[in-house]
């Protein structure tokens, strides 16, 4: 996802202003002149300055491109553009990866690590065009190895969920 520097610069400018406002709300102590807000305020000023520079730099570049006689200046530098791979079939794969991570955040505490991992990985492999039986086999193997490594060897309490009592 390509976003032009001018928009990003504007975003960082706003972020800096928000941080400055937030930092001004931090409690201060009379005996201590340099408190919790000191560094965040400096960083916020940095964001404002850097954001402004990005914005100005991009706008000047745009102006220079527009002045160019080719007339293509604006086309080659759109304000917002999707990554070409995302347009050509990459989007489902990306969404599947994000979906997998989100499922681990919201579903594993309820139904457990193994079912979420096996189903999620299988779907991801299928979207990546693996043959179904290969997808299922690798998904099961990967999930079991993760479980063995982290729960068996390292005693990490991955959620058991619906399999509680079975494992």
């Amino acid at each position, binding site marked *: 996802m390509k976003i032009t520097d001018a928009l990003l610069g504007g975003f960082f400018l706003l972020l800096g202003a928000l941080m400055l406002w937030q930092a001004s709300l931090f409690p201060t102590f009379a005996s201590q*002149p340099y408190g919790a807000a000191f*560094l965040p305020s400096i960083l916020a000023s940095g964001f404002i300055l850097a954001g402004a520079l990005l914005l100005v730099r991009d706008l000047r570049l745009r102006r*220079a491109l527009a002045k160019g006689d080719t007339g293509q200046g604006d086309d080659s530098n759109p304000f917002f553009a999707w990554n070409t791979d995302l347009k050509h*079939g990459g989007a489902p*794969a990306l969404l599947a990866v994000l979906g*997998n991570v989100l499922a681990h955040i919201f579903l594993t505490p309820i139904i457990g690590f193994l079912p979420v991992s096996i189903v999620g990985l299988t779907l991801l*492999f299928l979207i990546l065009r693996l043959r179904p039986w290969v997808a299922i086999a690798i998904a099961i193997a990967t999930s079991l190895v993760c479980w063995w490594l982290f729960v068996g060897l*390292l005693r990490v309490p*991955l959620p058991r969920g619906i399999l509680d009592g079975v494992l």
Partner: protein
Amino acid sequence: MASFDIILQALQLVLDPRVLLTAFLAGAFGMFVGAMPGLTATMATALLVPLTFFMDPIPALAAIVAASGMAIFAGDIPGALLRIPGTPASAAYVEDSYKLTMKGRLNEALGTNLLVSCIGGLIGIAVLIVAAPLLAEFALRFTSYEYFWLATLGLSCAIFVASSDALKAGVALLIGLTLATVGLDPTTGVPRFTFGQQNLLAGIEFIPAMIGLFALAEVMRGVIRLNTGTKPAPMPSNTGPLFKGVGGIIRRHPKNIARGSLMGVLIGALPGAGADIAAWMAYAVSKRFSKTPRKYGTGHVEGLVDASAANNAAIGGSWIPALVFGIPGDSVTAIVIGVLYMKGMNPGPMVFIQNPQLIYAVFLIFILTTLMMVPLGWAAVKAAKQVLLVPSRVLLPIVMSLCIVGAFAMTNSVFGIVIMLAIGILGWLLEENGFPVAPIILGLVLGPMFERMFMTSMIKSDGNLLAFFERPIAAGLGVCVLLIWVFSIIGALRQRRATPVGASE
């Protein structure tokens, strides 16, 4: 120099079979990750860290040292076979090694890579062993002012030396430093930027953030290319002895090896710049001083020797500021510093006095794993054809699973996964738009130290900025930092005046 007693203690720590086995397995893992295009040395380290969390300090460090060193060499393998560098550190000489392969000299290219990497690595370690204790003795007299300037020097290098777009690197650094301010303020204990979230009071967990930045973001970038990518070219075969003729090459280029290694160590030791930049600069210098600069990029072995030595020498170099000052030399040592803190081994000059056996154990591990590189590398080259056939569409989802489980393991809750996802998406978006991500991790690691030293200095001097220059070393470091800033800004302004954009005003 250390007494015999301490070296003996260190030997006992390192020669434990469990440590050796860990180093071997981690080395094989690093070799594999480094050889797979798209998976970097930093990623190998990031994926290992959740495992090292459960180990004692020595095996944990052995695992990281072994994995990162092997990954830097292994990146050369797909460079020679497929013209795709396995890690960014191998990108500088990929043209030369691939063209050598095309001429039927694959074994010569990879054999040279392997042996020169090993020699470069050993030179880097030698400098580390000599320089670190000396610097540590010197650093014992440092106060908050010197540390403030050192941290600032590291952050400035990350902006101006290690990046082509200083403005974007600066924004990335600000993001890292801002993330480091989340949680309880170190001086007054006030919660900052926690938005009422209990989980954020302790700050942003470093390791899930790093897994998101270096592993999850890479998976995201990788999968969207999968369904559009073209089939890789068929791989040339590599039979016959790997090291045939390599001895001659090494004998003919001792100056290149020495020069590449020394440049590698120096650039590695510079905070914020690591093996990638070392390789590029060593290649450029080699070409500049070569008698046959025209041959570079056409399958010439000279630049390959310089740069292969440099990227492995940079590893030893990057540990110097990490061990002595707690300031990372590159993103791998940034991770190492995080691990050291978790193990209660706060890096800094005091470790050299209180626990010298640990430091010498690290040195021994370095020597051991670098020597281990030769047999492991030989096996990796021989197995490369099969290994590189493992398709990314199988590999990337497995890496994703390791990210998820690793992030969970660091907090024992899904909150680790939340951090990883948030930082991963941020890192992906930033990198898509030309922002380097290494400064983020540098800011996140150096942030707490930077703030502590800054606040201590400000409170001590009652806000008098001149106090930052009153001690001689602090003044010297401070002037260095100011010079970097002044020259970089003047350079940027001059460049802008030279470009048509400025001229049209």
